[in-house]
């Protein structure tokens, strides 16, 4: 059977159970599904965060995620990938991003999910702006995110 790849960028929230069901529907060859959700926190360091607003570069975001999904498919024996990234205003407790990976065995699913998240953070064109008590500010990128993505190019 062919692999099932879903990539969506949307303002609306997503239902994780429904997305897993869609990824595994009518298939009996899947032995493992790994699910990662990124959730909006209510603080950064000691400062409270009232909300995040996510801006993106629509055409490039889709292309970039698709490119990394393709790399993951060629690198691990996956039966499916779903990536959903929300944009717009998101308040603490709400979902930001979902990565699902499905495979016969868990190892490929775990590794591919981590690979996809590392690349999403380092190279998918999304930008977060935080609402703090003192005003709004763009979130600074972390070197550790670039380092996390770079480690996949070593082996």
């Amino acid at each position: 059977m062919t692999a099932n790849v879903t990539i969506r960028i949307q303002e609306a929230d997503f239902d994780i159970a429904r997305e897993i069901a869609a990824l595994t529907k009518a298939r009996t060859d899947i032995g493992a599904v790994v699910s990662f959700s990124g959730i909006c926190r209510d603080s950064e360091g000691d400062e409270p965060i009232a909300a995040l607003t996510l801006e993106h570069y629509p055409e490039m975001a889709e292309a970039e995620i698709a490119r990394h999904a393709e790399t993951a498919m060629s690198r691990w024996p996956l039966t499916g990938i779903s990536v959903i990234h929300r944009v717009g205003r998101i308040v603490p407790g709400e979902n930001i991003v979902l990565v699902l990976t499905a495979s016969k065995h868990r190892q490929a699913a775990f590794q591919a999910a981590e690979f996809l998240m590392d690349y999403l953070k380092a190279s998918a064109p999304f930008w977060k702006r935080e609402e703090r008590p003192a005003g709004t500010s763009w979130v600074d990128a972390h070197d550790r995110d670039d380092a996390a993505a770079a480690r996949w190019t070593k082996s």
Partner: protein
Amino acid sequence: MKVKYFAWVRERVGKAEETIEPPASVRTVDDLIGWLARRGETYAHAFETPRVIRAAIDHAHVKPDATIAGAREIAFFPPMTGG
């Protein structure tokens, strides 16, 4: 060619996109950043630290030394913070 700006680069420039016609001497992404920075105060502010600016040509990431010849759309933005 069309140029797009995102996040704080967009805010500092004061627009999301525009069409530009740089002279032939502007060959690379780095050259273009330098040329844009000289277009006025808002641009100078947006591009004051070229090394933190990321660029994409026709929806793919490129390095500062990438040639802009034949590009339809060039985007400038800060390091990404999605996920």
